[in-house]
């Protein structure tokens, strides 16, 4: 059974310039112990889709007009704030994109690491300190007991991201939402962090939702992939299937525009144009303007789901690869 199931989730921002439909009816599910990668360009609604149902975005302007997010069968959207707070940070943890600013500069690493344990597990301060120290050791920070007393600015970006991971892991969450965890880090550190996530996932049997625009990261870590564009899901399926046998023009274009060492071309093909204005109503496919396979029908209505096989779904009118 799926541990997290998102059904037709919509997240709209009501601003002075109109309604911005950042997330416009997306569905996917996450099984225990599985890694789900969400890819898409900036502004495709990857982060908003996660932050919205966890109530981490200011509301107003955010409104969730429709949808269901089931955590173990219980709808998160209908939960009281109290109930959600008991799950968020305990069963569902998050790591953020920017390790340089995700730690409070005025608190020691130790006092921040102990927060989730004291809030959710009812640990006393000394107990929590001990447990937090173990977590720091686990994420590979040398001299963990000394590091507990240090302030964030004394750590590098990679170290801070390790601290964030340690913090997210102290409560042994069932789901870890990693919002571009390696975007701000350099490539070697990035590889270390991803390796660390993989190891810990194996130990704790935890599911990961990995938000990224880096297809390389997806290839290395994800089991399943959801491709998002302009607040919509375009394609989803197992990672190999999507990389090898993608059925969607957008996924194909995205893959083509990724530089690869084994295929050194003179010029990397880019997708022309840019992501559409989300405050306008799009009846049809939001990729219409940029799609090289577009047809008349694409302009008028958003395609229904097409199941290529039981695990692979694509949302496109054109069966380009038949």
């Amino acid at each position, binding site marked *: 059974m799926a541990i997290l199931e998102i059904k037709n989730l919509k997240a709209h921002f009501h601003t002075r310039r109109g309604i911005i439909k950042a997330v416009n009816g997306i569905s996917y599910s996450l099984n225990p112990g599985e890694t789900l990668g969400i890819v898409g360009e900036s502004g495709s609604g990857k982060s908003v889709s996660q932050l919205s149902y966890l109530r981490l975005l200011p509301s107003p302007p955010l409104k969730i007009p429709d949808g269901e997010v089931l955590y173990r069968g219980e709808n998160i959207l209908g939960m009281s704030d109290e109930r959600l707070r008991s799950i968020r940070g305990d069963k569902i943890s998050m790591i953020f994109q920017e390790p340089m600013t995700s730690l*409070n500069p005025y*608190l*020691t690493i130790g006092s921040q690491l102990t927060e989730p344990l004291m809030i959710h597990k009812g640990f006393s301060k000394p107990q929590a*300190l001990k447990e937090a120290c173990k977590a720091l050791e686990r994420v590979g920070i040398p001299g963990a007991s000394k590091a507990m007393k240090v302030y964030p600015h004394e750590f590098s970006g990679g170290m801070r991201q390790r601290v964030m991971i340690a913090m997210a892991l102290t409560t042994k969450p069932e789901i870890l939402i990693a919002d571009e965890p390696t975007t701000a880090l350099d490539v070697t550190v990035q590889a270390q962090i991803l390796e660390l996530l993989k190891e810990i996932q194996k130990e704790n049997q935890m599911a990961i939702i990995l938000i990224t625009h880096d297809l390389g990261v997806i290839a290395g870590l994800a089991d399943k992939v959801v491709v998002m564009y302009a607040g919509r899901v375009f394609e989803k399926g197992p990672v190999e299937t999507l990389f090898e046998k993608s059925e969607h023009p957008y996924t194909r274009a995205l893959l083509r525009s990724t530089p690869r060492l084994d295929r050194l071309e003179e010029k990397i093909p880019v997708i022309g144009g840019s992501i559409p204005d989300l405050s306008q109503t799009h009846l049809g496919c939001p990729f219409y303007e940029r799609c090289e396979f577009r047809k008349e029908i694409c302009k008028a209505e958003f395609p229904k789901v097409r199941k290529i096989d039981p695990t692979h779904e694509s949302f496109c009118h054109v069966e380009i690869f038949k």
Partner: protein
Amino acid sequence: MSHSLWSDAWHRLLKNKLAIFGAAFLIFEIAICILTPWIAPYGFETQNLELTLAKPSLAHWFGTDNLGRDLFTRILYGGRISMTVGILASLVSVLVGVIYGAISGFIGGKTDTVLMRIVDILYALPFIFLVIILMVYFGRNILLLFVALGLTQWLTMARIVRGQVISLKHKEFIEAAKAVGVKTRYIILKHLIPNTLGPVIVYLTLTIPSVILEEAFLSFLGLGVQAPMASWGTLISSGVEVMEIAPWILLFPATMLSLTLFSLNFLGDGLRDALDPKGAKD
């Protein structure tokens, strides 16, 4: 192993010589003020009309004023008033201002609009007017004077803190704290307020002297302390009147006030540096 912001700040503060000097001076001064009734050589209203406007001597260290009262004694008693006004009124202004500003900034939206319009309205009222209203309704009372001064000083503090909080609240560490499940109250108290301490302390060191001077102004209008009681403010203003014939009557209280303000500034600067973890050298 109690490694908190405060204990770390304390250790850093101990290393700052100027700040320690300031703190020592203030503590000494406060101690003297508390002990005044027992150590003052004369009564604060004891007049010696044969010895008016006397120069400093062994009998009267700071000389005497135009009624022959011992200036040293009067400065000691005046210090009691001025220090209490400065400290109490500033505490009131910090407590009210920081909490008000933090709540307003953090909650935002309509709450923020309403709270800040209230501040605007209070800003628009001349503070003398406010103090007079308070005095009329609650009677003249020296404690009330402290509160009234504090209540007019918190407005700027609230605005400063609100601005800080607004710039901080969208930082990722606040989002992370929310994601971890920290309650709003603790986010404000533990995560936001310590981050605003720098400007708060700097502004506080400006508030204390301005409150002391405002008290002098009120006393001059007859709304503050009443003669024969004195505060540094009233001593200075009466010193100004006889400045040409007996300059020491102005000089001594003014020097005391300046020394106090110097010490406050040293201590304030030291505190601000000590409370910034990035200032740690070890």
